[in-house]
């Protein structure tokens, strides 16, 4: 934003006068008197790093990109994939080649035409741009243009998540003319339902979009104007929602009470699980952790329901499994596999030969201090000492990879089965830091990879394995507290704390 010296001087003088008399007067700016123009203002949790589609992220970080960019596939609120820029897609028999038919009637906001060449340019750009989600296209060896409206993705190995990825960061299509330029980092150039109003957009403050004229799919364009107001501070988000400055935003159980008091509607959705990651399963650095009975004892130590009620005001569901309910890998019987049973926990420790005690160390994780304190106390009840180390820092990811932590308390995303496997179970997974595996487990993982349409079902075996072996001590799935006012309707999106941009509509 530019503020001329005159305006600055005026602001200075007027605000001086105002502050002195402590008299505001007038209506609060932003309390929308212009509801009829169908504008949507969202309280965003974080600013984007870059508008380059290759720098896009997953989950709720995807939402702002959806305003500017269409994706190849569209993910419905329930997780099913449907056509978008690709009208049809099909695997070959070995799941190593994915053929996509593309639309021919779409243009980008700079006039460039969307076609097979444009799609290839985007996928190639994504692969080499080193974005935070570059792993989404790891399996894609090359992209071939078959004809103007068909491309083929040749895979080095089957990837059961690839179609999902094409509805996420990897599927976002930017104008081939703009890809790789400096300009696209600050101003997106896509074929999406909205175009950025550059003059009204301020980095770290707000991104403003207006409806694009002649957009090919009017069903996905429900507002004249969409504003993402950057509100990283939870108090600021609560205040902005309650006072009507934003129409919807993400809160937490405590601030949610305040929003409910102001008649806001909750759209709860379970996206993450919280609990202990018992990462040193071979006992490489902490011998007792190598014993499955010790890991199971840890699982029996927690009164999950009580912890949930006290710490998160009951906003969640106690669980013993790390895979999410909508993922297809979720197994009902595993939900209460390890009920609260301190006596059994002690007996297991005794059987394992550790009745004199076990010591675990966890890093202190900002935001989870209360949870860690409760976990420490409940573990103490069965004879396990939990030492809480120093707070995690910006070297956290490297520290995890360097096996600095044998155990940690964390909150993790519950994605699609293959995504989750590669996040927490496989030997490639960051959160399987000690690269633990067995031939049995590896066979189950391989079955998922080559399982095609059955991948999700096959992932249940992986889930059962890690729960039986107590690789983790999950406590609960957490409700995401997404609140909105009565001017709009909101449909939750599976596996996203914040819904996709298509899931909002003006209230009738």
């Amino acid at each position, binding site marked *: 934003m530019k503020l001329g010296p005159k305006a600055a001087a005026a602001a200075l003088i007027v605000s001086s006068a105002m502050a002195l008399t*402590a008299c505001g007067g007038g209506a609060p700016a932003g309390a929308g008197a212009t509801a009829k123009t169908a504008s949507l203002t969202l309280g965003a949790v974080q600013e984007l790093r870059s508008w380059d589609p290759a720098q896009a992220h997953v989950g709720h970080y995807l939402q702002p990109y959806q305003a500017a960019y269409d994706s190849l596939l569209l993910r419905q609120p329930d997780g099913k994939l449907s056509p978008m820029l690709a009208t049809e897609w099909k695997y070959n028999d070995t799941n190593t080649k994915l053929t996509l038919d593309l639309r021919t009637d779409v243009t980008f906001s700079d006039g460039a035409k969307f076609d097979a060449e444009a799609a290839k340019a985007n996928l190639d750009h994504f692969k080499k741009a080193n974005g935070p989600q570059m792993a989404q296209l790891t399996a894609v060896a090359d992209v071939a243009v078959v004809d103007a409206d068909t491309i083929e993705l040749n895979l080095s190995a089957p990837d059961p998540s690839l179609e999902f990825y094409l509805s996420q960061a990897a599927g976002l299509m930017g104008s081939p003319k703009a890809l790789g330029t400096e300009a696209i980092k600050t101003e997106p150039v896509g074929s999406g339902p909205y175009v950025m109003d550059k003059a009204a957009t301020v980095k770290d403050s707000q991104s403003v979009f207006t409806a694009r004229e002649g957009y090919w799919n009017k069903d996905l364009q429900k507002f004249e104007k969409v504003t993402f107001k*950057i509100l990283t501070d939870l108090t600021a988000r609560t205040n902005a929602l309650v006072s009507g400055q934003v129409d919807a935003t993400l809160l937490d159980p405590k601030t949610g009470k305040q929003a409910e008091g102001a008649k806001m509607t909750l759209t709860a959705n379970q996206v993450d699980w919280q609990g202990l990651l018992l990462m040193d399963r071979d006992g490489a650095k902490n011998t007792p952790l190598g014993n499955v009975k010790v890991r199971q004892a840890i699982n029996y130590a927690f009164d999950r329901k009580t912890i949930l009620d006290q710490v998160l005001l009951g906003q969640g569901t106690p669980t013993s499994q790390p895979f999410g309910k909508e993922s297809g890998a979720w197994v009902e019987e595993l939900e209460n596999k390890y009920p609260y049973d301190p006596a059994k926990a002690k007996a297991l420790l005794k059987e394992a030969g550790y009745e004199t005690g076990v010591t675990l160390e966890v890093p202190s994780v900002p935001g989870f201090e209360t949870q860690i304190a409760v976990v420490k106390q409940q573990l103490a009840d069965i004879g396990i000492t939990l030492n809480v180390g120093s707070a995690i820092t*910006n070297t956290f990811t490297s520290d995890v990879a360097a096996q600095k932590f044998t155990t940690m308390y964390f909150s993790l995303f519950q994605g699609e089965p293959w995504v989750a496997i590669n996040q927490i179970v496989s030997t490639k997974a960051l959160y399987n830091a000690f690269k633990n595996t067995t031939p049995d487990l590896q066979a189950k993982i391989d079955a998922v990879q080559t399982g095609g349409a059955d991948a999700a079902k096959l992932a249940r075996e992986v889930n059962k394995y890690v729960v039986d072996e107590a690789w983790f001590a999950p406590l609960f799935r957490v409700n995401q507290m997404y609140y909105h006012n009565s001017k709009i309707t909101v449909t939750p999106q599976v596996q996203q704390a914040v819904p996709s941009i298509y899931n909002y509509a003006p209230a009738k």
Partner: protein
Amino acid sequence: MIPFILKRLGSGVVVLLAVSILTFSLLYVSSGSIARNILGDQATPEQLAVKEAELGLDQPIITRYFSWLTSALGGDLGASWFTSEPVANALATRIPVTMTMVVVAMIFISIIATLIGVAAAVKRGWVDRVVQIGAIIGDSIPGFVIGIILVTILAIQMGLFPATSTISPGVGADAWVLSLTLPVIALLINGVTGGAQQIRSAFIKQLERDYVRTLRSRGIGEREVLFKHVLRSAAPAGLTVLSLQLIGMLGGVVILESIFALPGMGPMAVTATIQSDQPVVMGVVMYTVAVVIVVNLIVDMLNGWLNPKVRVS
């Protein structure tokens, strides 16, 4: 006066250099996993290496520092490692927000604190006690708590002000005024109470001096005694306090800007520090140190103007 200013500017440059070396070294210590933080959980070692080379992280620290210094001296502060936003741009959009707040608050603090401090020193009795108690209360409540109370009452319940910033391009001065009023008041309350207390003490000390009695015995009016002679003598102490407050305020502003979602320096500084976004942190630190140096220089000049002895010493 000019040699004095030049001397102070010279030492300011030395301070800037020293701080830049120190900050750069501290950032270097924690910069081990920058590439991983930028690229995310699933980056391969090869990708990490490419990124590190791109950012120059594979160079020795001396080389990196001198390349930063030469660019900075040429006016190029680099671009954020995380957002690619040029640091100079980032500072240019955020400084007006923060500085408007700080400057407006300082003007009010100077006026109000002086009036209250003088009143307490001259009247003593109950006025003085009220000021003393007020100072303790005002000092003990953090600015952000005052901010939250103000938002709850004046913005959310009464709707007089926006709860978070409405500052954006083209909205006009009224949006600035409305958005900045509550955070400025929150800053003010702390500043005024602390400032008044100090000015009161300095004033009392002067009132006990012989020259005041002499002036009064010559029949010079009380108002002239107080505001021409005593205030001038008490001013250096007051100025020092105010300059310290201004510098301290740069810290308090950080939290207030977050609560009010003001697009100022604070949130950017916090994010950049957490991420070890070296170019941004260096830019913010250099700017802040420059402000501190300039404020001190101005205070010294004012003191020198009020009391010529300072210039010579």
